[in-house]
């Protein structure tokens, strides 16, 4: 059993060495780890899902949110003080986030449409049942 009073000063000292604002950094760490978890879901889905269209579900959604969360987390982690420069940095990173928010679904749709016009038919229910039996 680890005592909280013993751990807290160590953490505080470590944070003092690194610089930055403590509660903001904690939120940033949490967001980064959450993004990593969702990206794990995407990676496993890319391997496990049966056909191209279902893999697209994993990639199109997981990619958007995990990238957004990780970038937002790093925007908070790198914020050292509330000066103009660090605010500008946060706004820049948020510009990337906004850009990805618009473009990720668009490129997903473009690939999807290209595949659909290439006579790449999606799996039907019976094909899937056959595959599950194997």
């Amino acid at each position, binding site marked *: 059993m680890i005592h909280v009073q013993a751990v807290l000063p160590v953490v505080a000292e*470590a*944070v003092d*060495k*690194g*610089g*930055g604002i403590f509660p903001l*950094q904690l939120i940033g*760490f949490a967001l*980064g780890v959450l993004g*990593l978890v969702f*990206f*794990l879901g*995407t*990676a*496993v889905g*890319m*391997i496990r899902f049966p056909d*191209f269209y279902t*893999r*697209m579900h994993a*990639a199109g959604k997981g*990619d958007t949110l995990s*990238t957004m969360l*990780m*970038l937002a987390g*790093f925007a908070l*982690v*790198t914020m050292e003080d509330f000066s103009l*420069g660090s605010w*500008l*940095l946060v706004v*820049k*990173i948020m*510009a*990337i986030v906004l*850009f*990805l928010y618009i*473009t*990720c679904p*668009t*490129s997903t749709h*473009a*690939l999807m*449409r*290209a*595949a659909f*016009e*290439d*006579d*790449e038919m999606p799996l039907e229910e019976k094909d899937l049942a056959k595959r599950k039996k194997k």
Partner: protein
Amino acid sequence: MIDWFSIVMGTALFLMMIPMVYRIWVGPTPFDRMLAVNVIGTKTAVLLVIIGTLFGRVDMFVDFAIAYALLNFVSAIVVSRYLNRTVSLRDMEEKEKAKEVEA
């Protein structure tokens, strides 16, 4: 603290790109490969920000990340359009062949 967090995050991100490389390696259709390349490109933008945090020059690396995200989007659009056009060309050739057979 920030350094250790960046190193752990970057390594984990890099390890999770390996499934995507597997998808590029086996992927049955070209679209699977392009999808995996697209996902890796998006994650590379994040990786650039992480590297910037490690070097302490985030203000510089953020610009690279923006450029990389832009380039990634454009490449996805261009490749999907290209594959699309190639297909219609193939259809055209098949039609021409059918005409020749008829004649």
